[in-house]
């Protein structure tokens, strides 16, 4: 085995203009995959992601589409397949949420988030699975879930419900796609610093200042970075993870293992990461 774990694979990553999605696209390209970059807008960040993939010698196709829209979803899959010939890997990652207190949740917000991050993920997965079945060589579908699928944080009801739904969704996909060679799994990130940073400030990514008191509750004693989530996706999409199916892998530096909410206790002086 070499470090090229995804050589020749064709992978579509939604919401990959920047952040975690961009990190997945770049690590996939490092491992030899051609990738489709999708987002609702094309901007400088999207251009940077595409350039980064191309600089690794891999093909990057651009697909502007809103995964909350039925026509956009169908066009996205058709475009990707016409560019790459087939689809081997789908990573459902696109999401834009915000905090909303339970008593203030609006129907509009519910419909928006569920429509994008649950319905949109399901029908993209369905469309990808049908194309994979037609092609006859299996494939891998990965939903980006969250630690919010397991526990509640303030004002995260809709987001948490959507993410919990994704964990359950892949179990049914594993069932109904039995024997097709397609695996369906989730990756549940913890605290990931996915900010767009000037390259000069890259060293500050996921550092103690950014994480504040949360750092004290992360056994790995650092914040996560997009590459951590991308590593789990490479595992699941490569031969390394081919017998993993219907699973959600938590990638949180051990944060949930202790079960202590980040804002319930201050960081004790002397703990790694605490202010001197």
């Amino acid at each position, binding site marked *: 085995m070499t470090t090229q774990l995804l050589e020749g694979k064709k992978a579509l990553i939604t919401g990959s203009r920047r952040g975690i999605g961009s990190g997945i696209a770049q690590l996939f390209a490092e491992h030899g995959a051609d990738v489709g970059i999708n987002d609702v807008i094309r901007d400088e960040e999207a251009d940077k992601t595409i350039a980064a993939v191309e600089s690794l010698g891999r093909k990057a196709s651009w697909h502007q589409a809103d995964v909350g829209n039925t026509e956009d979803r169908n066009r996205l899959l058709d475009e990707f397949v016409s560019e790459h010939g087939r689809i081997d890997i789908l990573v459902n990652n696109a999401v834009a949420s915000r905090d909303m207190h339970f008593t203030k949740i609006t129907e509009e917000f519910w419909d928006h988030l569920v429509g994008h991050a649950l319905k949109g993920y399901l029908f993209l997965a369905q469309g990808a699975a049908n194309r994979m079945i037609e092609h006859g060589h299996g494939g891998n579908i990965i939903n980006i879930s969250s630690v919010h699928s397991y526990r509640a944080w303030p004002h995260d009801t809709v987001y948490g419900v959507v993410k919990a739904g994704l964990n359950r969704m892949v179990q049914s996909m594993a*069932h109904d796609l039995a024997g097709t060679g397609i695996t369906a799994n989730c990756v549940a990130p913890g605290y990931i610093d996915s900010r767009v940073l000037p390259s000069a400030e890259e060293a500050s990514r996921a550092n103690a200042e950014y994480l504040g008191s949360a750092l004290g509750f992360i056994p790995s*004693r650092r914040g996560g970075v997009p590459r951590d989530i991308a590593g789990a996706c490479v595992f699941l999409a490569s031969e390394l993870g081919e017998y993993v199916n219907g699973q959600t*892998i938590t990638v949180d530096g051990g944060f949930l293992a202790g079960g202590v909410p980040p804002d319930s206790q201050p960081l004790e002086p002397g703990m790694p990461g605490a202010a001197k």
Partner: protein
Amino acid sequence: MGLLDGKKALITGARKGIGRGIALTLANEGADVGINDIVDDEVSRRAAELVTNRGVKGTFHAGDVSTVAGVNAVIDSFLAEHGRIDILVNNAIFPDQSRPLFDTDEAYWDRMMNLSLKGYFFGAQRAAKEMIAQGNGGSIVCLSSVHAYVAIEEWTAYGTAKAGLRRMVKGLAIDLKGHNINANCIAPGAISNVLPDGDDDVIDGAPHDPSRFTKHLPAAKGGLPSDIANAVLYLTSELGQYVNGETILVDGGMIATKTMQD
């Protein structure tokens, strides 16, 4: 270039089956590997030789890892050969893994818990101590099981021990915070352990007949030692370093779809 170049890994119960598969897989990725087993015979030596044949250092460390003294003796022997320890894979288990409830006597219970919980715990404790002293972090992986999630007739003692490991790695993650050590479990489903005939320089034996498990299992086949070994590789390499206190099921979708006994 491998994913584990220069790492030093100790695998318990690695004379054959899944443990041997883990040893050879980590060796393929550039790790020096110590094979431990309670059985000291030609097969054990051959496993270490197969590691060496991959261009890395392979050693054999006979010992019973169900006592603290035994665990320490094995790790001492490993350190004498390799100088440090970066990866510990707790994998050892005896063949007699299931037993009817009323035939489960105190001696069997103690044997199960001493190997699968006590031995794994004190192995992890000692390895973590070494890793902290070395200052470069490390990885601890324990082999759990689908039996940690669901009950099958006659597997109560084994399942109890394997469920304990899922909780144990969370405790290791919390207590080792700040030392760059990740501790996780792999929970295998139905894995083929058939030893290869003839050419023994392979990781997987012949897979079981898929119908032996279920026609509904999503993967439509039994797992292989390489499936488990590859998950260990993920957790011990850079790819999985932010996974901590977690248990990864490698079961072809068995638990997700509850198709264990169809």
